[in-house]
């Protein structure tokens, strides 16, 4: 398949990203996505919806000073996760909330896919 045209960038700028853990639930009106992104601030968080993909990228704000480091369970890395979304999402209505290391995204379903009650007109 020759779909990728910018092959010169393949090996450049390879950053290591961690996949943040996520909880997702759906209701009649929304999809709610909750992601764990400790150390991420509003300024270095990016949420982009393009084509059928919702991409969340975030850079950690922990400073890296390897000289003083004695022990580490985790390394300072950036987060990235992509979700495939369907046509039932209203692209203009996505709310994002970042609170204490938890990112909550609310994706509203578009009006066309919501269950709709059809009124019956009484005709005498």
């Amino acid at each position, binding site marked *: 398949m020759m779909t*990728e045209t910018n092959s010169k960038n393949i090996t450049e700028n*390879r950053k290591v990203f961690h996949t943040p853990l*996520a909880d997702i*639930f759906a209701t009649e009106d929304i999809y709610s996505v909750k992601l*764990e*992104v400790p150390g991420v601030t509003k300024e270095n968080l990016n949420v982009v919806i393009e084509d059928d993909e919702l991409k969340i990228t975030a850079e950690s704000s*922990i400073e890296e000073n390897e000289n003083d480091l*004695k022990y580490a369970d*985790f390394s300072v890395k950036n987060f990235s996760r992509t979700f495939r979304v369907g046509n039932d999402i209203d692209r203009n209505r996505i709310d994002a909330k970042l609170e*204490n290391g938890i990112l909550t995204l609310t994706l509203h379903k578009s009006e066309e896919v919501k269950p709709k009650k059809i009124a019956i007109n009484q005709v005498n």
Partner: protein
Amino acid sequence: MYTYNIFNDMIKLRTLFDDFFDQKPGYEASREFPPVRIKEADDKITINALVPGIPTENIDIQLADDSLVISGEKKDDYENHPYIRKERLFGEFKKTIRLPYRVKHDEIKADLANGILTISLSKSEDAKPKKIEIN
């Protein structure tokens, strides 16, 4: 203009393999919670712990002799709706960190910001070397 180069596909395959091994969860779930990073410099210890979504009242920090105990509970925030994905882990936790020396009990600072707990400790006076005068 795009010209086909057979090596591009090989590089892509290599990238795919690299990504498979590099992209793992933010921290390893099998490790003791919370994951920490410990830095030590100039008689000061800084501990960073990842505690996303846990409010300060659910985290308890205790100093016992030369050990620091971080305990608490990560309460689930599930809502009464059908879930498509449940990856996050919840429950009670306790972690003991053995410190390299005794620390000043009255100079302990703990800050919680963006889901990261930062604990600052400084070396106690009686843990520092002391020169003894000979009469």
